[in-house]
């Protein structure tokens, strides 16, 4: 099925989902009266890509052949519908922050950071477009499904190695070289398939340009949300620089093909939207964050947890606890933990699977069984966050801000929704590496950064947003 390379197809595949997502994102967020162009196109990319993957899935479900231009036409139709939906809805007054005119230094600083970002991404785009698919999981876990689907022109099933051996002669199913990857969610292979169908080949460096676009979209969303949250232009640009130029973010972009970038961007954008919901109670942002939580679950198995965190934090924002109900809930939680620790629980949910929790291990549907025991992985965690160059000075800054919160007594304040999401995600990551047999992937550094990357976008957002902790000292001292 490898034919001549289609540049028009490539451009269409890159920008049509973006336009589609931006249109529907605008349709949704314009109801809130709080949005800007950067939020729309940043969040829009992820919405557009998920709609594209969904369309491919529906296309196959109704039995139509995988033909790029027909799918593109469907997306175009959805764009037109979105356009008319926008025209048809009543206009909501846009609330904008009153911004004083920029000083010259602000323009210089903003330009400087934009130049640093541009320089970095000029390097990265060349690297992506030159190097054939390189990174391990990309070719072992994520691209094989897309390649097979592209060549067969249909969604040939992937099964476990055991099932593959048992399959009847009249069936065709594939299995993967890594034992569990056959059951990984299909969204990332669908993103690759979309590019392959567009370009007419399964073997080209440009197929992986969405790995660049998703990070750029994440940067735009971060900038837009920081501006919505009241950050000045230089500060919001600084936030983008701090995120987009992180070495580990760059390496996940340039050695494209892993799912982690997508989980990080989706979780990040969901937290940005959740923050906006928490601060201004505009329901379109709640809807957006829940949609992105759903997308998280379709990207990678740990995405189930990250999506769950978004839902949990959202629920925590709508359920108001009084003192009595709070204490009751806490007591109930403690009693549950004690019960699980002493007796354990083990039950099955029809169509979902077995759930078993005890001090020996955890069994959760889709995620599997994890033996529980303590593993001291501090050395690896410290190495990867503080000694290696993965995260520049980000974790030092996070620790510093934490200490500052302790020092100024704000540590006991109810954390914002963004901070809640970051802390829950960190709690999950540290629990996995300290208490389950996956600790080996922290010790050998094969996974720990790929898990930490999920919290990085909301962490950067939180740190820039929490600048008030640091920067408002000035105003205090001035006013005194």
């Amino acid at each position, binding site marked *: 099925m490898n034919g001549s390379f289609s540049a028009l197809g490539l451009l269409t595949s890159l920008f049509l989902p973006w336009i589609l997502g931006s249109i529907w994102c605008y349709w949704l967020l314009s109801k809130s*009266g709080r949005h800007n162009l950067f939020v729309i196109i940043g969040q829009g990319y992820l919405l557009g890509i998920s709609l594209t993957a969904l369309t491919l899935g529906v296309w196959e479900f109704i039995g139509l052949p995988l033909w790029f231009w027909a799918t593109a036409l469907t997306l175009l139709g959805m764009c037109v519908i979105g356009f008319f939906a926008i025209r048809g809805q009543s206009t909501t*007054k846009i*609330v*904008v*922050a*009153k*911004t*004083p005119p*920029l*000083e*010259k*230094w602000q323009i210089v600083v903003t330009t400087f950071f934009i130049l640093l970002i541009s320089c*970095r991404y000029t*390097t990265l785009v*060349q*690297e992506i477009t*030159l*190097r*054939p698919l*390189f*990174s391990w999981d990309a*070719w*072992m876990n994520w691209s*094989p499904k897309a390649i*097979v689907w592209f*060549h067969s022109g249909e969604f040939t099933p992937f099964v476990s190695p055991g099932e*593959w*051996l*048992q399959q009847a002669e009249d069936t*065709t199913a594939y*299995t993967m*070289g890594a*034992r569990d990857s056959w059951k990984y969610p299909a969204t990332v292979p669908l993103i690759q398939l979309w590019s392959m169908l567009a370009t007419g080949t*399964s073997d*080209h*460096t440009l197929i992986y340009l969405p790995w660049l676009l998703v990070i750029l979209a994440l940067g735009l969303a971060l900038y837009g949300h920081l501006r919505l*949250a*009241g950050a*000045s232009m230089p500060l919001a640009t*600084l936030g983008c620089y*701090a995120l987009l130029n992180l070495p*580990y973010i760059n*390496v996940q972009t*340039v050695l494209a093909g892993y799912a982690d970038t997508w989980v990080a961007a989706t979780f990040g954008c969901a937290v940005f939207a959740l923050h906006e919901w928490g601060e201004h109670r505009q329901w379109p942002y709640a809807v957006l964050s829940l949609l992105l939580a759903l997308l998280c679950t379709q990207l990678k198995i740990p995405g189930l947890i990250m999506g769950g965190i978004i839902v949990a934090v959202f629920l925590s924002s709508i359920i108001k606890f009084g003192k009595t109900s709070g204490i009751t809930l806490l007591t109930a939680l403690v009693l549950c933990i004690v019960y699980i620790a002493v007796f354990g629980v083990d039950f099955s949910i029809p169509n979902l699977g077995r759930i078993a929790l005890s001090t020996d291990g955890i069994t959760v549907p889709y995620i599997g069984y994890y033996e529980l025991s303590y593993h001291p992985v501090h050395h690896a965690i410290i190495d990867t966050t*503080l*000694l*290696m*160059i993965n995260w*520049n*000075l980000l974790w*030092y800054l996070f620790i*510093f801000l934490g200490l500052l919160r302790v020092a100024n007594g704000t540590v006991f304040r109810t954390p914002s929704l963004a901070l809640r999401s970051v802390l829950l995600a960190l709690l999950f990551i540290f629990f996995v590496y300290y208490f389950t047999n996956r600790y080996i992937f922290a010790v050998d*550094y*094969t996974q720990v*950064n790929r898990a930490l990357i999920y919290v990085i976008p909301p962490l950067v957002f939180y740190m820039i947003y929490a600048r008030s902790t640091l*920067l408002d*000292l000035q105003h*205090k*001292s001035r006013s*005194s």
Partner: protein
Amino acid sequence: MGAVPGTQSAPIGNVEFVWALARALLALAASAIFLTAAYLTFSPELAAYRAAAGSDNIQPRTIPGDDLTIRLGTGGTGRDKTLHLAGLSQDSRAIVTRNTSLQASDYPFVEYTINNLHPGAIVYLIWKTAENSEEISRARLHQSGNEVTTTCLGNDENWIGTITEIGFDVYGDLRDEALVISSLRILPYSPATLLAAIWSDWTMFEAWDQASINHLRGVPGNAILSPSVAIAAWAGLALLALGMVSLFKKAHNPIGYLAVIFIPWIVLDLLWQHRLSTQLTETKFLFQGKPQHERHLADLDADLYQYAQHLKSEVLPGPEARIFLLHDDKGERHNYRRLRTQFHLLPYNIYNYGSLPPRKHIRDGDYILVLGSINSLTFQSSENLMTWGERGRLEVEIVDEHPVGRLYQVGRGKAE
């Protein structure tokens, strides 16, 4: 349009910004001077090098390139006392050395000046000692940002005793360009040498490998000092200094705080950019201007790619064929070659587990691809029989033989 009150405070003026930036730079300069002096004075490793040295007046030893003798490979001397290493031996190797006599403990550092060093050529420093004259010790030398690179051998367990012979061992590919070795200097401890070695560590280059996607050390494994730690300390001390001064003057300026955090951040970022730019030069050398097929041929796994292409285009029928890929992983946890071969063979339908055929699941017409050699698996060509263990037998026909692997097709009537 409505407005959100109070979300934007009045901006800092241009003059105030310049003053804040100047104060931040001053704090950073003071922090850098203080930390460097403290490190050079109190570092326990350096104290150990000083203590190990025989005297305080040890002179550096300089070996010009043309003083090195080519033991393996080809080349000759050039202008300015250089040695031009123009070719490798048949096993892609070159060795250049010179006899010497020096105490390793007196010389914890080595400085080498090599032009045209690139990731294709893997260079080791090699040496022999009087105490163990039969054994050759070696330390990997990396390409750094400069032609002159300093490395610390003081923490190498084999850099002990009396060094009797020293030189370079080169592997890989010279890429049609001679390595020009200008000099090899063996250096005693000095603060300047130490700082040069740290800088070389920080600017060294290692091309992408399969671990790059998982973590980025940023420095070689034996680096003296992590750049992240050093730069964080630099920013932290400057922040503390600025905070103290601001507290004393009761005038906090957020620009100053941000500057003492983000100027060091940018420095670390520029080191990373340097590495990315060097990588890009290497990537361009390998892949630029080539169609996708030739890019694969220039890649690390070209042999597997070529083999897969050969099978797909010349040997195998359509992708509906089922292939059992067998490989002896010899206990390796990650098995690059079997997984990479499977990838290159896509969209063929491959079962890729184990080193022996899962006999009862194999059908007539299936293919068995044996990658490399598997000791416990034999093929008797006279009987068209693949055998393993005590009872494993399968009637197969050999379809293709290649240095990378052998492809068999399961014949009619499987034996036992």
